[in-house]
């Protein structure tokens, strides 16, 4: 296999892992939403993200060409193999505002990321990016409205969503992390420099956070890192144990 193909597989798995793990977390809300409409909204968002993950896993399996299915990547890898950002694996089912803030911070990045990726020289990646960006845009719009509504809401909602922002901020540097895989793909026109998205991401986040009367935490804090090397927080193992239980316990199960 060429060096380029190995890099492409790794790159697709990162995108797919981000979407899958985020989807699984958001799906935790199913049946627990604060109101029926938001319960349904969460299931819809989760489904979009799951669909995006499937597209990128399927492409990775085609590139790998050894008969691995999308299910293999989702259900038969351990936490050291997952390449998702640490932010998406953080437990959601504690505060609706936390989920909205997470969806918002991630979504702003993914919007910019897929916008660039639509120009990828790789036809499949650009197609999947063009598909994903439409859904991500809708999610950001929804999450952004909630961030404003809760931030500029009651004293308690303001306090709680500010706390969520403070808790999530140490995970935001990881959005822009890249390594030699990115460099190779950037040289080949298949991917783009994520670091160049920082200014625009800051502006997008600032616009909504200001409207929400919230305060962006100081940058002089410890920032988490590790996803692209498969080094995760303690939460991912538990998530995978639950998500992977059925296909591992009943290897012949089909759906």
């Amino acid at each position, binding site marked *: 296999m060429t060096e380029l193909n190995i890099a492409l597989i790794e790159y697709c798995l990162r995108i797919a892992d981000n979407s899958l793990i985020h989807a699984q977390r958001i799906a935790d809300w199913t049946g627990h939403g604060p109101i029926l409409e938001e319960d*349904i909204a969460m299931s*819809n968002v989760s*489904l979009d*993200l799951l669909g995006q993950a499937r*597209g990128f896993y399927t492409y990775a399996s085609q590139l790998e060409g050894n008969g691995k299915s999308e299910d293999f990547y989702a259900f038969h890898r351990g936490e050291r193999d997952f390449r998702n950002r640490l932010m998406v694996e953080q437990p959601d089912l504690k505060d609706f505002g936390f989920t909205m803030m997470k969806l918002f911070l991630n979504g702003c990045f993914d919007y910019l990321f897929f916008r660039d990726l639509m120009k990828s020289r790789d036809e499949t990646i650009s197609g999947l990016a063009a*598909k994903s960006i439409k859904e991500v845009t809708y999610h950001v719009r929804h999450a952004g409205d909630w961030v404003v509504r809760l931030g500029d809401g009651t004293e308690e909602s303001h306090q709680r969503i500010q706390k969520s922002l403070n808790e999530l901020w140490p995970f935001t540097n990881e959005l822009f992390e890249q390594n030699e895989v990115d460099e190779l793909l950037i040289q080949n026109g298949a991917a783009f420099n994520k670091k160049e998205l920082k200014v625009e991401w800051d502006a997008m986040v600032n*616009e909504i956070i200001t409207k929400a009367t919230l305060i962006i935490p100081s940058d002089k804090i410890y920032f988490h890192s590790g996803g692209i090397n498969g080094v995760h927080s303690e939460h991912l193992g538990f998530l995978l144990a639950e998500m992977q239980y059925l296909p591992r316990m009943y290897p012949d199960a089909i759906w």
Partner: protein
Amino acid sequence: MVKLDVGEIWDLLNTIPDPEVPAISIVELGVVRDVRISDNVVEVDITPTYSGCPALKNMEDQVRAKLLLAGMTPKIRTIYKPAWTTDWMSDETMEKLRVYGIAPPEKVSFENLHPFANNDKGPVECPFCRSFDTILTSRFGSTACKALHFCNSCCQPFEQFKCH
């Protein structure tokens, strides 16, 4: 068995209703993108409406069944490019949606695609009483492709096919 040509296969696929919105066919919805025939094999390209739409598998199964019953060998491919858009639905299809009780989508072509762009096109027309005195109650609905609205005039909740 009589062999069908490409046009007749399109007509055949046009008889398959969307499993979630049976008022329109999967061809009218824009999910069937291309039909090619080589020997007895019919290649059909389909594209998902939303990435995670659970109805896609059902649509694929229905296409396969229709072609098998017509004595042809189906080969179905899922494609992502170009990305599905509600702009592919014709005015006639939009009217079918409305008659069925689902407000049709606005044209995407007029929309600014940035998440924070002000795309306020005003209230959606109620498909039942045609009043514009309506409000959006939820951006998400019973399926990935619909949002929930409420009509203050006839006091009915209704769904809109999201502009996508």
